């Protein structure tokens, strides 16, 4: 029997611990909001229990002990002997943080270095104070010896074969058939089944499993049933006692082996391959390394470009060329396949947002507690899938927006009561697919944005003339919130402030090709909407040319294309500018930027926006829109911050990707230094 090697087992453990800890975080927050939330309590209990077992199975005893003590305390809460309290929740959350840190330490160094003794003592104190005999309340887990609880602390996790056991079963020991059902809620059934097998191995020799050990190891576990034929000297009672300890077990049965099973054994021993006895149903999953997915995505991107070249050549072929028709139809077929392939690869990189969202209840809870507010976070659309690179990069922006909603949006309870609103504020976090984009909404039902306050501040800061501020629409005023250093909060709080503002959120979202918008209604609340692309690697771009060289701008940063004549421009603060839609638009010549200046009378201007800054980029010509695959520049080649990377379009032909954020910086550097009066 082949097995997971230790590294693979560790990987499974770490991934599982990650998911379990996220689940506990979420459930603890739910429990705090509603102390009688039985479901949340059960969920935390189950997660702690599972973590205890898998940490013990991988040999991380301190983690296992901590999880076990959490489990004991939770059991007291479940049985009503201990009242849930914010202090208890805080302690449990600290425990979760400690477990997470230990998990990270294991991932980084192979061993946890954090010592949870103090937390364990606190938990024991609580458990002892409520009951005196923490473990007596749960006879079904009475197997845990006092003081140390992992049943097999130093068991090598991935000993490869049952035959290695020191005390194997007697040669004439009977074979028993164990049928075990994995709980439907189990996130990783194959990994769980594998961990079970590691435990079952200790009871005897595993003769056969269905699905086969190889299949389980490869992540192929169809359905939820695991059948094990075990040659064992243990009595059924002993087996039963051991098996019911297995985590995420829904049910099990111990019987005589069936004739069919034995027949298969005979065949297998004869060494011939037999087709799988059980029909395969349901969808199987395999864990894949992210690096492979990234490589696949890159190759698919190259293929898309290559297809474009082939299609271009084919379209130029004269009808009379030999095999023109055959070539054409083959090229079209190829084209369809490439499209489908790319879609499949993109799908393979998709992850549901729920894993990303799982940490946010905690974020909102912590913020609310610090601010003395009551807030409920409602999450919708967690099953929405996005490219994993995007899922990773929206964490910080969303965290910021959620903290922002709690500290600036939601009113203190008294104020809400006075306004006739429910005391508990509501923050909605919702994800959905819209028109090939992902739309993420962060909405609160708080006081809304005070537009007058923004007006006053805009005038005070010299950003607008009083008349202009009066005439400005809400939308234009909201835009100001995205400017760096522009905050309407009277004091910067630790929760949302941290010295950074919405400008950072916006630039992070725009870095991944997204856009952000605000809507707000006084007294009713504020809504932030993030529109994100499905993937990062392939970006729709506007291709422009200068001096026969091609440059690309991410389409998400392009607002519009306008033509001006030289006479329409003027010098403002030493910089070339035009009056565009009632505002000063600074102009930057692509020629100056790339070191090839030129004289022009007619100006083709691409209006680029990132952050709150807008800038007009003068180019020779707009070539068109095209999807490009972005690649980094080789090292030591350029120190220009204006170039973000390059992409191939055509044979050996590169286009340079302009860094929109950098262009905007050039624009705002001037704007901030020299507030300029606006002529209408």
């Amino acid at each position, binding site marked *: 029997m082949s097995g997971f090697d230790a590294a693979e087992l560790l990987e499974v453990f770490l991934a599982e611990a990650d998911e379990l800890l996220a689940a506990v975080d979420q459930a603890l927050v739910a429990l705090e909001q509603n102390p009688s939330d039985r479901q949340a309590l059960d969920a935390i209990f189950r997660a702690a229990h599972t973590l205890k077992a898998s940490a013990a199975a991988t040999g991380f005893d301190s983690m296992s002990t901590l999880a076990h003590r959490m489990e004991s305390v939770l059991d007291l809460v479940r049985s009503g002997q201990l009242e849930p309290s914010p202090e208890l929740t805080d302690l449990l959350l600290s425990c979760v943080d400690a477990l997470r840190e230990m998990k990270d330490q294991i991932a980084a160094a192979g061993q946890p270095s954090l010592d949870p003794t103090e937390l364990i003592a606190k938990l024991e104190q609580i458990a002892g104070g409520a009951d005196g005999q923490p473990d007596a309340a749960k006879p079904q887990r009475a197997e845990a010896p006092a003081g140390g609880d992992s049943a097999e602390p130093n068991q090598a996790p991935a000993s490869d074969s049952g035959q290695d056991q020191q005390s194997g079963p007697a040669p004439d020991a009977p074979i028993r058939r164990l049928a075990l059902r994995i709980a439907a809620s189990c996130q990783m059934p194959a990994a769980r089944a594998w961990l079970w097998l590691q435990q079952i191995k200790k009871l005897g020799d595993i003769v056969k499993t269905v699905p086969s050990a190889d299949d389980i190891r490869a992540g192929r576990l169809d359905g939820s049933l695991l059948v094990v034929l075990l040659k064992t000297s243990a009595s059924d009672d002993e087996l039963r006692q051991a098996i019911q300890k297995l985590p995420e077990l829904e049910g099990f049965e111990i019987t005589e082996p069936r004739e069919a099973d034995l027949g298969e054994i005979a065949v297998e021993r004869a060494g011939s391959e037999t087709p799988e006895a059980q029909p395969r149903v349901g969808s199987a999953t395999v864990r894949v390394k992210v690096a492979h997915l990234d490589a696949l995505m890159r190759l698919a991107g*190259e293929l898309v470009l290559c297809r474009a070249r082939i299609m271009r050549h084919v379209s130029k072929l004269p009808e009379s060329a030999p095999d023109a028709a055959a070539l054409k139809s083959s090229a079209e077929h190829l084209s369809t396949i490439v499209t489908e392939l790319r879609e499949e690869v993109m799908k393979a990189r998709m992850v549901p947002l729920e894993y990303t969202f799982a940490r946010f209840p905690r974020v909102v809870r912590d913020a609310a507690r610090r601010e003395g507010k009551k807030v409920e976070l409602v999450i919708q659309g967690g099953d929405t899938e996005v490219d994993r690179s995007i899922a990773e990069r929206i964490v910080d922006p969303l965290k910021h927006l959620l903290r922002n909603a709690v500290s600036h949006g939601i009113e203190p309870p008294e104020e809400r009561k006075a306004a006739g609103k429910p005391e508990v504020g509501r923050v909605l976090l919702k994800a959905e697919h819209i028109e090939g984009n992902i739309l993420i909404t962060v909405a609160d039902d708080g006081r809304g944005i005070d537009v007058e306050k923004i007006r006053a501040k805009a005038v005070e800061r010299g950003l607008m003339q009083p008349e202009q501020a009066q005439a400005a629409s809400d939308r234009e005023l909201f835009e100001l919130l995205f400017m760096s250093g522009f905050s309407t909060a009277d004091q910067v709080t630790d929760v949302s402030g941290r010295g950074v503002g919405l400008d950072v959120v916006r630039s992070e979202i725009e870095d991944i090709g997204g856009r952000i918008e605000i809507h707000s209604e006084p007294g009713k609340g504020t809504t932030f909407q993030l529109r994100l692309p499905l993937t990062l690697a392939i970006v729709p771009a506007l291709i422009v040319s200068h001096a026969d*060289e091609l440059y690309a701008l991410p389409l998400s940063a392009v607002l519009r294309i306008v033509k001006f004549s030289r006479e329409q421009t003027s010098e403002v603060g030493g910089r070339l500018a035009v009056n565009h839609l009632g505002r000063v638009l600074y102009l*930057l010549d692509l020629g*100056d*930027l*790339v*070191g090839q200046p030129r004289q022009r009378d007619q100006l083709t201007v691409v209006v680029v926006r990132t952050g709150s800054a807008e800038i007009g980029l003068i180019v020779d010509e707009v070539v068109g829109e095209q999807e490009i695959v972005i*690649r980094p*520049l*080789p*090292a*030591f*080649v*350029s*120190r*220009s*911050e*204006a*170039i973000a990377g*390059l992409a*191939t379009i055509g044979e*050996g*032909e*590169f286009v*340079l990707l302009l860094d929109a954020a*950098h262009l905007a*910086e*050039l624009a705002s*550097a001037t704007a901030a230094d020299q507030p300029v009066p606006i002529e209408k």
Partner: protein
Amino acid sequence: MDARMDQSAAPELQLVLFKVADQTYGVEIQQVQRLLPIPPITRIPGAPEFVEGVIEVRGDVVPVVNMKARLGLDDTSYPQDGRVIIVEAHGSQLGLMVDAVTEVFRIAADAIETPEQASLKVDDPMLKGIGKDGERLIVLVEAEHILSAEAHQQLAPATSQAQALAA
């Protein structure tokens, strides 16, 4: 600096010889991956003056160094039939733009003198040694030091237009 030569068990080095402005240079054959006619090169704004731009070689983005500019010569133009030598340096590819590639040449390792031995004052890590072939002098070039952090700093710091504008 001469670790490679000192520990070399073989008494001979195999060099790919090339010409830049009538001077013969050599690069060790192990570092050479392929030779190309000069392809269209994409200029990179903000690049050091001696970086001509980038080309695509079998799907990779490869920077090309103008060896004349790298050596500080005034005339940095190349004949129509010039060549680009693709070498491996720091685990990635690098193109050297040269006038011509002439031959593969064997030379005894001990026939190569370091710049110090030849009592030449050279302050460029790229120039690794000098070999004699009768009257002909062959300058041995170390690919790893053609485009490196030091080379980037020491030589021709490119004025970034963008930075100049922002200032």
